[in-house]
């Protein structure tokens, strides 16, 4: 199967998902090409020339940074030029802007958040979760000749080793971009703590229930010598600043100990903490996805455990 990977890059740097997709492609591929869609593809190309990449496609466009329409139109032409069996993009914010649109327009097979791949004879089999990550499913794509898959970040290790890819240019014509990049803004500057530097994080999630309950966990974290971090719902509710948020849209953390209280473990949260040294999770739901990445777990009420912890510190 020939595989086309769309390199993801931001501000001149290739994002880790790109090299992870090279590893993913090894499960399928005889031929792997990486398309670099950029104003100056050569500046990016070196970063993706790793073992496993056969060809790097230089796709030159005018846009400085990522723009939905530019990627969608460029990729449509690259696919038509190269006819890959499988197109891989990251399951990332950028890709959400063009990949489903392209799959729908071209009638491609499609799945997102894919974390395992294999070949079964001539069939491609992809694995992803359903029902809030509580069940997994094997998918195939019998009704389409070409498949576009969005790959879960951190599901594969990044490919390493010097590559010996040949390069080729693919000329594309781009019409006017209807959603234009204006500016980047950094949010959640360091007015608060830097949770990425903490050795011990006590992290709370939706299980705290109400804003009034957050304070007691802040105090508990203090007593235990931990830094308090939170999952997304607490930031969405405005209960805690986004500088405290662990996960894909927040911070990626790797403390020695990550103590998760009342966090069910959405995929986006797990992506931000699953490489922590030791993960201890407390949740009332024995099927909570957090237990799949935790080293230690207990099915218990977080308030009862917190009360007992307070007595010990």
């Amino acid at each position: 199967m020939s595989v086309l990977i769309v390199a993801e890059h931001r501000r001149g740097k290739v994002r880790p998902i790109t090299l992870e997709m090279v590893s993913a492609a090894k499960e399928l591929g005889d031929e792997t090409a990486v398309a670099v869609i950029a104003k100056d593809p050569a500046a990016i190309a070196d970063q993706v020339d790793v073992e496993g990449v056969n060809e790097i496609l230089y796709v030159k466009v005018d846009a400085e940074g990522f723009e939905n329409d530019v990627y969608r139109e460029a990729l449509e032409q690259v696919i038509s030029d190269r006819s890959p069996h499988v197109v891989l993009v990251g399951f990332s914010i950028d890709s959400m802007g063009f990949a489903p649109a392209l799959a729908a327009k071209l009638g491609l097979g499609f799945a997102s958040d894919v974390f395992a791949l294999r070949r079964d004879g001539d069939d491609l089999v992809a694995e992803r979760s359903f029902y809030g990550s509580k069940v997994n499913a094997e998918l195939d794509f019998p009704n389409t000749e070409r498949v576009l898959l969005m790959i879960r970040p951190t599901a594969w290790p990044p490919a390493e080793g010097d590559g010996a890819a040949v390069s080729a240019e693919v000329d594309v014509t781009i019409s006017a971009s209807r959603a234009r990049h204006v500016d980047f803004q950094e949010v959640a500057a360091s007015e608060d703590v830097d949770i990425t530097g903490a050795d011990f994080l006590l992290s709370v999630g939706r299980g705290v229930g109400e804003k009034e309950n957050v304070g007691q966990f802040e105090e508990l974290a203090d007593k235990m010598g931990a830094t308090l971090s939170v999952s997304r719902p607490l930031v969405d509710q405005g209960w805690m600043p986004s500088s405290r948020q662990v996960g894909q849209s927040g911070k990626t953390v790797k403390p020695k100990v990550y103590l998760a209280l009342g966090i069910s473990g959405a995929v986006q949260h797990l992506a931000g903490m699953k490489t922590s040294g030791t993960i201890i999770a407390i949740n009332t739901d024995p099927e909570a996805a957090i237990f799949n990445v935790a080293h230690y777990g207990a099915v218990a009420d977080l308030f009862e455990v917190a009360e007992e912890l307070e007595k010990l510190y």
Partner: protein
Amino acid sequence: MKVLVAVKQVAILGDEVEFTEDDRDVDPDYLDYALNEWDSYATEEALRLVEAAGSGEVVVISVGDEDAEDSMRRCLAMGADRGIRVESVRTLDPIQVARALAEVVRSESPDLVFAGVQSSDSVQAATGGALAGLLDMPLVAVVTKIELGDGKATVNRELEGGLVDVVEVDTPAVITIQTGINEPRYATLRAIKQAEDKEIDVRQPGDLGPQAQRVRRMFVPPKGEGAEMLDGGAAEVAQRIKELVEEKMA
């Protein structure tokens, strides 16, 4: 000012699970249903824009069976004006859902189309994007702020790691809405009652095209190494946590 909001009634799986006989889906007896969390934010955002414009309407659109109207009624109770449901009794992939919705959007000529970034049950994050692709409309995905201008909007696209991309998008456009963009209002009891009388137009789907994905087999993920479970009551669990923290921090 007319805003269409694509909403989904999502399935919630409890502690126990059984699969259908062909192992391709979860037995519906084990599922509860609710309005997708992202879609309540999308509905709220649409209501605010129409209220700020002074006139217009918010139309909730969905693909599903009659039960899915429960979630649509939630949006109507929040203040949406009417609903359109495309009849579907089977599980569709996100691209097929988008094909069903695209026909509705074409018939309504809205100024904006909103969808939640993703659904909490399937997390494909694809329906809104696919819809834009089928309609050849401008798209911005994962938006946390919208400012309307003349024939365009300035929006914040939430990137990974706390970075925001400010984007200027031509309208009409499809925008997928991220949680936290606003604080969705609660419906009053009176509004919930009034929503019962609001119109939900039921339409039959046209050609939904080929399946973009087929489930071969669904299963409970193997626990793998998984977590070592700590037994006992809260006091014992707390004691073990203290020991573990001391050991691992040393």
